[in-house]
């Protein structure tokens, strides 16, 4: 019988951790049991981006989108939807705005405003099957380049497209290739930076897991353009599934001759190797990455010479990030003008963001440059969770900064974000509501950079630690106005004097919160008060004797036995014993406990 349906099961790390691999097996069993195995194909695909609602199951061609599916649901899906054409309503996605089920992905706000270039095959093809990639124009761009373009034409095309590095810096990719092509050597290298380090960002992992061949193809195109025959992927060993799929993709590509000697009869040789990183944030910086690739400590070295001149083993090397590479094949096939027609004046194409925090729809989204934060947060993200008020959005991870309500309508691109005091970074986007304390947010990111500083230069190693101590002091209510001034001064010095990008950008979260939320810092310092109620040392829980009914519930939930009082009489919190966990505050049914 003819194949009438495909059931796509998300095989990304997120969904597999909630047993989507078992779910795929259960679906196959249920299909076999009903004699449908020949009519329906089950495909373990890459990430759909809607990770929070995983495991995701999508049915083609009717686009039904099931969320939070467990292996136990497999039988019902097959018996109802696949056999009898009735969608399983309870597994459909519910729109947070209307509280109605949405029948298919075409009607989901999460997908409507997205435009997928880098993620074009994620959640669509089976990443472990090279044929499915080929069916989606895979390796056609490499073929076009090898048979009908000169290396300088390729570089010109990428330059014209306006593609800029997606890893954080935003350096023009075509220009980078051009510089690397100018240096001649017996061996040159194409290096793929898959050391995704920003907390919360996982687009590179999803691309490698969902569409590994796109990166391999782009590396070969880059190799042809700059005159390199070897490619290295520096990938963190913490991404076992990405490593496995990439490894398989490399082997498959070699087997069919899309990697190796004389690719497509053009005389061009290219091969790719993997190198594992131990997951150090600093190794995302290209010189530190190259040090680590060579087997040395992952410490940055000063530039120039740039890697394009002396990189891996002293040979000319070109380093690009995973998402940047994934954009290259469509640029070659559809043309630079097509790509340049998307986006803003100086930022072309699309960008993948890892949308997280207090939004309804958490996940991976790819949007055209120039979209506003409001559209991303309220349309795609479905608004702030639990109807709370938006406060800020953090972009760019530990190197970025916080944007506030006044930036909501700013078109997102590299330059606008910089101007607003943040940065694109690798595309982390963490949304915060009124319950987030901005001083604590700055502290969180600084803790990360202090931990990840390689220790080579003093401003970063010592300066960031001193900054963190000051933030601690502020959160404990022990700081003065002077400390705020010193904090800013130190931040600016670290920015100016650090050796590499890690140190130069580490003070950004502090500076941008100082700029945008100075009143919150002041409240901590002068009033010894945390407006969001997050800084434990500054919070006081008090029971209002007027409202307290003496139900004893608070005393029961208090883990520190700090609440005393008789039944039906007002209770009292012993401030010396209170650990400020907030359990009583949540438990009280009469709103008698106040937090200040």
């Amino acid at each position, binding site marked *: *019988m*003819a*194949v*009438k*349906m*495909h059931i*796509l099961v998300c095989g990304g790390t997120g969904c597999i951790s909630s047993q989507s691999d078992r779910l795929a097996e259960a679906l196959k069993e249920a299909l076999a049991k009903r004699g449908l195995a020949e*009519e329906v194909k089950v495909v373990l695909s890459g990430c759909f981006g809607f990770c929070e609602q995983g495991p995701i199951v999508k049915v*083609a*061609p*009717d*686009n039904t989108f099931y969320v939070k599916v467990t292996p136990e649901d497999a039988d019902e899906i097959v018996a109802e*939807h*696949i*056999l*009898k*054409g*009735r*969608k399983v309503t309870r597994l459909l996605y519910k729109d947070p705005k209307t509280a109605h089920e949405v029948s298919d992905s*075409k009607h989901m706000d999460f997908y409507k405003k997205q435009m997928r270039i880098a993620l074009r095959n994620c959640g*669509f*093809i089976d990443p472990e*099957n*090279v*044929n*499915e990639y*080929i*069916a*989606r*124009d895979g*390796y*056609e761009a490499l*073929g*076009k380049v*090898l*048979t009908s373009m000169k290396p300088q034409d390729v570089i010109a095309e990428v330059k014209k497209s306006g593609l800029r590095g997606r890893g954080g810096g935003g350096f023009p990719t075509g220009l980078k290739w051009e510089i690397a092509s100018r240096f001649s050597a017996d061996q040159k290298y194409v290096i793929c930076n898959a050391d995704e380090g920003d907390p919360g960002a996982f687009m590179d992992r999803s691309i490698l897991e969902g569409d590994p061949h796109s990166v391999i193809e782009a590396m070969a195109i880059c190799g042809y353009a700059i005159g390199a025959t070897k490619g290295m992927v520096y990938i963190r060993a913490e991404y076992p599934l990405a490593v496995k799929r990439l490894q398989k993709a490399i082997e498959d590509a070699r*087997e*069919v*001759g*899309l990697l190796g000697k004389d690719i*497509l*009869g053009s005389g061009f040789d290219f091969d790719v190797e993997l190198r594992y990183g131990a997951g150090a944030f600093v190794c995302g910086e290209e010189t530190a990455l190259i040090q680590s690739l060579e087997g040395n400590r992952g410490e940055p070295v000063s530039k120039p010479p740039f890697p394009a001149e002396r990189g891996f083993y002293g040979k000319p090397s070109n380093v690009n990030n995973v998402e940047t590479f994934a954009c290259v094949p469509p640029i070659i096939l559809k043309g630079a003008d097509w790509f340049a027609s998307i986006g803003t004046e100086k930022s072309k194409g699309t960008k993948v963001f890892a949308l997280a925090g207090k939004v309804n729809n958490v996940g991976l989204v790819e949007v055209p440059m120039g979209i506003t934060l409001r559209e991303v947060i309220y349309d795609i993200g479905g608004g702030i969770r639990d109807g709370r008020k938006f406060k800020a959005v953090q972009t760019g991870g530990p190197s970025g900064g916080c944007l506030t309500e006044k930036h909501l309508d700013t078109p997102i691109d590299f330059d606008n974000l910089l101007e607003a005091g943040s940065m694109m970074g690798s595309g982390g986007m963490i949304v915060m509501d009124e319950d987030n304390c901005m001083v604590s947010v700055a502290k969180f990111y600084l803790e990360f950079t202090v931990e990840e500083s390689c220790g080579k230069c003093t401003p970063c190693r010592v300066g960031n630690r001193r900054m963190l101590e000051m933030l601690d002091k502020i959160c404990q209510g022990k700081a003065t106005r002077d400390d705020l001034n010193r904090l800013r001064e130190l931040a600016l010095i670290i920015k100016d004097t650090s050796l590499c990008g890690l140190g130069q950008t580490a003070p950004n979260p502090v500076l941008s919160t100082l700029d945008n939320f100075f009143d919150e810092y002041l409240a901590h310092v002068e009033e010894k008060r945390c407006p969001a109620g997050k800084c434990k040392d500054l919070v006081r829980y008090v029971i209002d004797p007027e409202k307290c009914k003496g139900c004893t519930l608070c005393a029961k939930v208090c883990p520190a036995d700090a609440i005393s009082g008789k039944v039906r009489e007002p209770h009292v919190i012993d401030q010396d014993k209170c650990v400020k966990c907030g359990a009583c505050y949540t438990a009280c049914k009469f709103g008698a406990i106040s937090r200040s």
Partner: protein
Amino acid sequence: MSNKIKSLDELRKIKQSVKEGTELREKGQEIDKMIEVKVSMATCGIASGAREVMAEMIEEAKRRGLNNVVFTQSGCMGFCHSEPTIMIVRPGEEPVLYGNVKGTERIKEIFDHVIEKGEMVDGMIPTSYRTSHE
């Protein structure tokens, strides 16, 4: 596939031969621009051979080289007297329902006229209801 791909032409040939593997998904993405044939798969439909009809129609579309037709299933359409029932939705047009779609001749007729030319044939089920979604 253990043979090496030796040229761009060979790659394109392979692409043609493997395209079918992901075709259903491609059609799903473009479903708004496709002629959608919904087959009613209620118990009465299945008992009257809806599954076989759907498979036959998929084969027929393939034989005719029609790339703009996509087949989906639906639950009970409520026309148990005329099963198997199909609903044909041409982009931008009102859906049309046909009953008793069974047998090579009937399927051929529907393809010749309704699907390929947008004409009407006998056996149409008139519908005048609206659903709560409209």
